[in-house]
Every structure is written in structure tokens, then in C-alpha cells.
């Protein structure tokens, strides 16, 4: 069965704060409703906590870290799920029930199956 990554782009905020209790509850409800097809996922702290890592000169080279996310955008990657769905139609239907899609956007991407 094909898998899809559902990448959630929404407000770049600290979702652990009490003012986001409702959102947290919505996500918990989604997690229960979609439990049968969820294969993984996580919520992420805001981009201010991100560190971007590059190795200069390729493998084994100098490690260079930058404070902040790889790309600065208005809506940030705030979480992701791994979904197992029969086809894109089903994946889109599920993605539409992720709370992040209601005031942000969810990018649905097919996962490569290397046959391993």
C-alpha cells in the first residue's frame, strides 16, 4: 500500500503554549480518527529552535551550523504525518481532516518505495 508524507505548513508558533490547547485537542482527535492509517508523525517546535547543518566540502568536511530554518517562509513546517492510503484521493481526503489544513496548508507527497 502506498505511503504519503503529509507535511503541515502553518503558523510558526509554540504549540505547547496553553493558548493553543484547542489546536492540540483537534490534533489529538485527528490522531484517533486516523489511527488505522497513521504510520508515524510528529509536531515540531517553532523554527526559532531550528539549526541548519551543512558539511562544507562534502562528506567528512567542516560542519557548519546556522541558527534558524533552511528556508524562511511565512508558513513554516510545523509537523508531519506518514499516512498509508490506497491512492491520492484517499490521501487528500485524510489530509483535509488534519487541523493544519484548516488555517494553513498540508503538502501531500508520495513516499518512495525502494522495495527494501
Amino acid at each position, binding site marked *: 500500500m*502506498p505511503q*504519503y508524507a503529509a507535511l503541515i505548513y502553518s503558523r510558526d508558533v509554540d504549540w505547547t503554549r496553553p493558548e493553543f490547547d484547542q489546536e492540540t485537542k483537534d490534533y489529538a482527535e485527528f490522531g484517533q480518527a486516523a489511527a488505522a492509517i497513521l504510520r508515524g508523525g510528529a509536531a515540531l517546535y517553532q523554527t526559532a529552535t531550528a539549526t541548519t547543518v551543512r558539511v562544507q566540502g562534502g562528506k567528512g568536511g567542516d560542519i557548519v551550523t546556522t541558527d534558524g530554518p533552511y528556508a524562511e517562509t511565512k508558513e513554516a513546517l510545523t509537523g508531519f504525518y506518514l499516512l498509508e492510503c*490506497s*491512492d*491520492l*484521493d484517499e490521501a*487528500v481526503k485524510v489530509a483535509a481532516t488534519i487541523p493544519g489544513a484548516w488555517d494553513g496548508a498540508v503538502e*501531500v*507527497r*508520495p513516499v518512495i518505495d525502494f*522495495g527494501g
Partner: protein
Amino acid sequence: MLATLVRLTGDLQLAEDAVQDATLRALERWPRDGVPAEPRAWLTLTARRRAVDLLRRESARPAKEVLAMPVDDATEPETVRDDQLRLLFTCCHPALAHETQVALALKVLCGLSVDEIAEALVVPPETMAKRLTRARQKIARARIPYRVPADHELPDRLRGVLATVYLLFTEGDDPIGEARPALVDEAVRLTRLLRELMPGEPSVLGLLALELLSDARRDARRDAAGHPVLLADQDRTRWRPDLVGEGIELVGEGLRRSPDVPDPYVVQAAIAACHALAPTWADTDWAAVVSWYDVLLTVAGTPVVALNRAAAVAERDGPAAGLAAVEAVVGLERYPLWHASRAELLTRLGDRAGARRAWDAALALPQEEGRAAQLRRRAEVCRK
């Protein structure tokens, strides 16, 4: 046949390769051995064998599944129709960009070459080839399903399919640019397929009616020199009565089936029917045309619809009222036909200087050469 192979293999690229190989084989064999009794069945069977070979070579996918599929039903008209519908809904899947949907439909449902599609959609051939490759990849990798949506999803999905089919039609039915009857015929064929799927759906009835009533004028739309002839000046004896008759009947059915919420396609077809029923331009029931435009504005209001309504007002109430209606339409300052409408009405009102300025404004705007040439001819007529 391609549609059938896609159902059997579930893979657009593979189906296309297999059909192409089968066609090449037919070109080799048929002149030598004679055309088989059932050419379609022969081609489908050959293409399926080829698909199985290709699958085996890839070996990552289950060739057995394809082998197990019954192929003998693939020549039944009903199966062929269903396969085509499935493919149509796949091509018009909302996860594909709109311009991609049209290009894909032209390629896999109408069998046009990449060069032909590139020309029809005014895109460089390399860009079109890349766009089609990306679309096929997305269908395969993201698993866009090959199926006609379930009944409860149909209304939503139908809108996109109809928009794509209508775009296909208008690409072929361009009254100014080059006419492409093959695209028109394909669009009508696909609309008829949709009607078989949803016989009572007003928007399908409306789109089919709109297409037939517009296509009925095909032969009257050009003069002997190939220049476009406006509706007002067309020789109406050259309109095809069979298409007019069928179109008008469909409008009636579409209206009966959408008594509460008018459907934009049915309403546009009703306007076309008013023209089709009028023996001459002067004898057109302009009050009815204006009323239909009023209805259209409520369900699909755009500035261009408002401009067309204003042109009908000019015929019903005279050029002064028409000009006021044209000038009341906002947002078309960059649209050459808005200026052209003003120019023609100013001419009728005797304001030659005003008309000249309006023509200049119309011709100064960027537009395709064919359209500009037609506006120049209209300006010429006004000056006389």
C-alpha cells in the same frame, strides 16, 4: 484502446508505450498478412502482450495481474466507453494543474502528438513534452486513481471535467484564430460520453447544447477569403439545422432539469439558442437575450459577460443605451473588445472622432495578430 490498456495496466506511460509498439507492429504486419478480421481486438491484444513484456522486464511489478485481466471484453462498446470515462476523470483530476489537464486529455484521449498539442496551446514543444512527462510521473507516483468518482463525489469532480472539455472545445472552435475541427469533434465526443454517464445532469446537457449550437455555425464563420465573419453578418442558411435542432432540444431539457438554480452552461446555451432561432440578426429576440445575460450574471458574472449583455442592450434599446451599458462595465480597460464595442456604438451615434480614439485604444493593446487584423477590418467598415 489506450484507455483500455490504462485500465489493464494501471500505468499511463506503460500503456502508451505498449499501444505505440502495437501500432508499429500493425504497420509492419497488416500490409504483408492482411488486416485481421477484428483490427481493434488485434491491436488491444498485441498491446496487452507488449505491456506484459515491458512489465516483466521491469520485474518490479506484478505482470501476472495484467495477464489475468480479461481482454476479450475490451472491444465491447460499453467497456470502451467506461475506460474512456475513467481516463477522462484521471486527466481532469484536481491534483493536476488546469493547463496540464487539457494537455493530457489531448494526448491520451484525443491522440494528438506533443507538437500538435504544443501548437494548439501555444506553448513551446519542449515545455509541453516536459509538462506531459511530469504529469505522467505524478499520476504514477502519487497514485492518482483511474476511476470514475463515486456518485457523491461526481458533482465536484464534474465541474473540473466540464471546464477542461469546454476549454478543449474553445481551443478548436476559435472564431478568429485557426479552427481545429478535430478538437471540436473530440470535445463533443467526450461531452456525449459524459451525458451517457449522467443523462439528466443539467450542466452536461448545457455544455453539449452550447457546443452543438456553436459548432452548427462552423461553415458560416469564415468568408471565401478565410476571414472571420461576425455572427451579425453570417449566412444563416449555412448553419447546420441538425445540430441547431439537437442543441435547442438539449437546452429545453437542461432548463427543465434546473428549475431552481440556473446552470451557467445551460444559460449560455439558451443565449446561443436565441441566436439559432432568429431568422436574421435584426429579428433576434433581444429582450430574451438580455434577460438570459441577466441570469448568467447572477450565476457566473464576469466583466466579459457584462460586456456581451451591453451589446445585446444596444440591439434592444439602441446605441445610446448600449454605450451607457458598455461604459458601466468596469475592469475591461485592457480588453480590446471593450474599446471596440465603444467604437462601434460611437460610430452608430455619429461621434466619428470619439470612435477613432476608441479604435486607436483597442488596437494599441497587446493582442494576437489574427485578432488585431479582425479589429482593423471592423474599424475599416466603421470608417465608411
